[in-house]
């Protein structure tokens, strides 16, 4: 079983026992963790033993605390790749950390904070402390990643610590962390070998027998630079005339490493020397790859050379336990490469070409691309990019694709239309919409017509040009090959969403159902689930509550298929379910689903659902008469939804806000909102506008302007009926009833209401009526009376029990069965529950810290959060409240 390249990045270096141990430095690192430092920063130039020190420290710390290790590469400057690797590393310490790539792949992609918040929430649920090590952080230069790490540091859960090893001070808020005592720092002055350590290294580890003077001379010359001392030692091991070496070495100004590496190279056999120079172009080495690069003219036994190098502590670092993969210590890679350039410049492209071929034949296409590009082997590079491009795209690694294609000459790219399409998609998904058209310029191939239309459709959708998005998506579907399931699924879904937003719910239902089927056929669970969640909403708008609920439940089943724990994207289905359950007046279940939906959406970074979940919770609290909590949830929803493009959800939130203003008697605010909203009465009536304008009508009625409301409602009703939006029609008709009632036009009021009831009864609508309070109750009573007296032709059409049930629902003072659900606005995390149990058991903070193996400061932090959530100020109160709520 061979090591994957991913594994080599996650491999914490093993420690060779012969190296110099540095207990004082280890103790500083340990001390930092004990003090609860968020960040350990090791910033020193190459060759000061940073990685070695961390490796030794990992071995020291591992039994008590898990360590997740990530060795960074130049290629990790692609944010999608970077965070995917971070999540992968975290998963070695905590198996429950989920896939982050999917979060970033949503359309539109969430702000990085949302996805990271999701990751952090997942980490916070882990019990035991652990450490994330990022090695070679200086290779990262992408601003967005730095911002992400800063965000991570600001919100780091108490049980996690971050270690960064770098050659340059990173652009992170270091002074702030230092000021708060949350930083442990090690620099060149700490890491350099002291005279003692140099002596130990040279004489005991390397087996030389140098006098104190000699050691001092070498220490002076190298200034404690470990790499320098190491090379000097290696050189001296092979020499008889050690004194001569020291004299020459200390007597020259020559750049140490250049001098020493040349010395050491001269001491190697010609075969080894050739090996070192020619393989210096590789990021990673395994014997087969080295053999391929060196070629068959003058072959070298790479396997034994690698073993020789490792044994002699020369240049290479193992990347796994199986001794399959190695890499050069970067310091030496550069020096060796420079020599290669000097001596065999014209052979370099050929070496890269061979490396590219080997990687391609071994099925590692992404690695092959880099070498092909460097070799100037454009044909191969283009072919490989086309081959691996789509997979790279689905992982969200747009930056990588853009870099690859950017390295190819423009006219070359133009001659390969498939690259052009891939380029266009990468541009579009990275938000560089203006660049898309020039990528597609000149692509007239029939074969690609579907793909070209597909990316244009996506761009139109993002720009909000719904008619164009619909037209292009339809065109794309006409031309895309049947077998291209994944792309067809995406385009179909985008089309369905466009219909949904523009208010054509019948088309939305049809199209999204197809998208679901395609997603399943393509084996894309995440994409299928998003389609199902929106399909459910489309059913709701059409008035099919039962089918909506079925869809949500199906989605939940799909989401749980992977394992026992619900995955984050189940959050979308839970929120949807909360909506229909609320309508059916099952407030307890609706609240439970909303809370679970919120929790999972937060984990997954699904902002729209996170917001919607809060809005639903707000409605549920309001329905129970808990105004305060309702407002709190509403404010949260508004805050979370700021700055995003979630027009539909924000319309629902705005509606709720308007209702609460009126309920609180803040007429002015409500009316001002109405002014703003109705000014644009000529706007096309899409789904979001319909919600807003319906809310406007509601406010007008509540504020004693039923005449105006009726005008608006008539327009809305017609539009809804034409488009088959029965769900909306029910709400509108109910409002019409109230408006007529306010004008004392009882007959018309009853008539409107009965029409609403006829449509609503088969699907069991309840809250739409109950939420309207007294005026609606009055009207319904009249309907009931009319039914009982056999009057009004229409009344006979409505099942008699229905109206009675509705009236009964008004009377209920919704008693939640579980007091805990009502009282706890924000549920306690698992960790907080652990701490609370121990608090109730009577343990002090220090005892709890010992019991759970965490810092006392961490315990205090948890306790404060618990007080906040329980609404108490002391331990005694907390215990009482916990018992009251039957939390434990």
């Amino acid at each position, binding site marked *: 079983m061979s090591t994957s390249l991913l594994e080599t990045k996650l491999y914490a270096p093993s420690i060779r026992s012969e190296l110099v141990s540095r207990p004082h430095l280890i103790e500083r690192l340990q001390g930092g963790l004990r003090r609860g430092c968020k960040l350990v920063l090791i910033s020193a*130039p190459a060759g000061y033993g940073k990685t070695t020190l961390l490796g030794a420290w990992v071995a020291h710390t591992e039994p008590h605390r898990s360590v997740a290790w990530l060795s960074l590469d130049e290629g990790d400057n692609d944010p999608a790749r970077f965070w995917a690797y971070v999540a992968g590393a975290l998963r070695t310490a905590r198996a429950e950390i989920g896939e982050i790539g999917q979060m970033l792949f949503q359309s539109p992609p969430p702000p990085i904070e949302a996805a990271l918040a999701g990751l952090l929430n997942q980490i916070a649920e882990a019990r035991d402390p652990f450490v994330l090590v990022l090695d070679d952080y200086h290779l990262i230069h992408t601003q967005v990643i730095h911002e992400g790490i800063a965000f991570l540091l600001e919100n780091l859960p108490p049980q996690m610590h971050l270690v960064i090893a770098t*050659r340059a001070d990173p652009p992170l808020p270091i002074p702030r962390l230092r000021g708060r005592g949350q930083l442990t720092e090690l620099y060149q002055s700490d890491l350099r070998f002291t005279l003692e350590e140099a002596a130990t290294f040279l004489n005991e580890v390397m087996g030389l027998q140098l006098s104190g003077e000699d050691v001092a001379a070498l220490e002076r010359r190298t200034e404690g630079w470990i790499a320098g001392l190491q090379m000097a030692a290696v050189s001296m091991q092979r020499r008889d005339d050690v004194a001569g070496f020291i004299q020459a070495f200390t007597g020259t*100004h020559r750049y140490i490493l250049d001098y020493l590496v040349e010395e050491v190279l001269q001491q190697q056999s010609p075969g080894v020397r050739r090996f070192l120079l020619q393989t210096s172009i590789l990021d990673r080495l395994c014997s087969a790859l080295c053999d391929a690069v060196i070629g068959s003219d003058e072959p070298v036994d790479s396997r034994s050379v690698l073993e020789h190098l490792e044994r002699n502590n020369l240049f290479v670092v193992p990347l796994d336990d199986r001794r399959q993969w190695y890499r050069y210590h970067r310091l030496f890679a550069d020096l060796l490469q420079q020599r290669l350039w000097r001596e065999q410049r014209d052979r370099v492209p050929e070496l890269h070409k061979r490396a590219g071929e080997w990687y391609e034949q071994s099925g590692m296409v992404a690695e092959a691309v880099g070498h092909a590009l460097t070799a100037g082997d454009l044909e191969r590079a283009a072919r490989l990019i086309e081959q691996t491009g789509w997979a790279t795209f689905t992982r969200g690694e747009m930056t990588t694709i853009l870099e690859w294609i950017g390295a190819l000459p423009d006219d070359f790219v133009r001659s390969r239309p498939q690259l052009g399409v891939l380029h266009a998609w990468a541009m579009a998904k990275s938000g560089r919409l203006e660049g898309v058209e020039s990528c597609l310029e000149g692509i007239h191939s029939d074969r690609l017509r579907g793909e070209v239309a597909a990316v244009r459709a996506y761009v139109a959708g993002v720009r909000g040009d719904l008619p164009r998005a619909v037209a292009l998506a339809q065109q794309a579907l006409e031309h895309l090959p049947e077998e291209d399931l994944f792309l067809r699924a995406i385009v179909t879904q985008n089309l369905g969403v466009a219909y949904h937003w523009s208010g054509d719910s019948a088309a939305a239902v049809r199209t999204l159902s197809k998208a679901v089927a395609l997603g399943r056929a393509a084996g894309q669970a995440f994409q299928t689930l998003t389609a199902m969640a929106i399909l459910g909403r489309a059913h709701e708008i059409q008035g099919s509550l039962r089918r909506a609920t079925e869809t949500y439940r199906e989605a939940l089943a799909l989401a749980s298929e992977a394992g026992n724990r619900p995955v984050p994207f189940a959050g979308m289905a839970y929120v949807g379910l909360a909506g229909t359950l609320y309508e059916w007046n099952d407030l307890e279940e609706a609240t439970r689903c909303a809370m679970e939906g919120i929790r999972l959406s937060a984990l997954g970074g699904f902002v729209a659902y996170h917001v919607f979940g809060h809005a639903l919770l707000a409605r549920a609290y309001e329905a129970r008469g808990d105004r305060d909590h309702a407002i709190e949830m509403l404010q949260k929803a508004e805050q979370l939804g700021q700055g995003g493009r979630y027009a539909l959800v924000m319309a629902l939130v705005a509606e709720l806000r308007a209702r609460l203003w009126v309920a609180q008697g803040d007429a002015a605010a409500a009316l001002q909102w109405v002014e703003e909203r109705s000014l644009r009465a000529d706007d096309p009536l899409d789904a979001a506008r319909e919600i807003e304008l319906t809310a406007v009508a509601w406010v007008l009625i509540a504020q004693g302007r039923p005449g105006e409301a009726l005008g608006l409602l008539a327009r809305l009703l017609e539009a809804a009926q034409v488009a088959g939006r029965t769900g909306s029609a029910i709400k509108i008709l109910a409002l019409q009833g109230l408006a007529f009632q306010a004008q004392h036009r009882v007959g018309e009021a009853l008539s409107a209401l009965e029409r609403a009831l006829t449509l609503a009864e088969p699907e069991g609508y309840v809250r739409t009526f109950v939420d309207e309070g007294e005026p609606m109750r009055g009207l319904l009573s009249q309907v009931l009376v009319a039914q009982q007296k056999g009057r009004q032709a229409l009344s006979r059409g409505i099942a008699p029990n229905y109206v009675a049930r509705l009236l009964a629902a008004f009377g209920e003072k919704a008693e939640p069965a579980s007091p805990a659900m009502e009282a706890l606005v924000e549920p306690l995390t698992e960790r907080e529950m652990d701490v609370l149990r121990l608090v109730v058991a009577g343990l002090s903070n220090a005892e709890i810290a010992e019991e759970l193996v965490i810092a006392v400061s961490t315990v205090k932090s948890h306790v404060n959060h618990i007080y906040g959530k329980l609404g108490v100020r002391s331990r005694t109160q907390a215990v009482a409240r916990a018992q009251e709520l039957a939390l434990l």
Partner: protein
Amino acid sequence: MNHCEGLEEQVVYQVRVRGVIDSRWSDWFDGLSIRPQENGDTLLTGPVRDQAALHGLLAKIRDLGLPLLSVRRIWKDVGWALGRELPCRVGGARN
């Protein structure tokens, strides 16, 4: 296009590092002139395309573990820095 005008616009940097490296390193540093100094420093001098190229150069120096001592911009002394006569006078007398 006037050849001299192009040169006048190029920005020349001079970087000083500690440790002597020889002229064979010139290729690795994109053709900069390498001049060891008597005190054990080395001067790397030459035109640098822009800020990004400058940072790339500094990163190369960093990654070799060569201690960086100073970075100067000396665009007026183009002819001297490149060690050769220009075919025409650049903007009159040299400062």
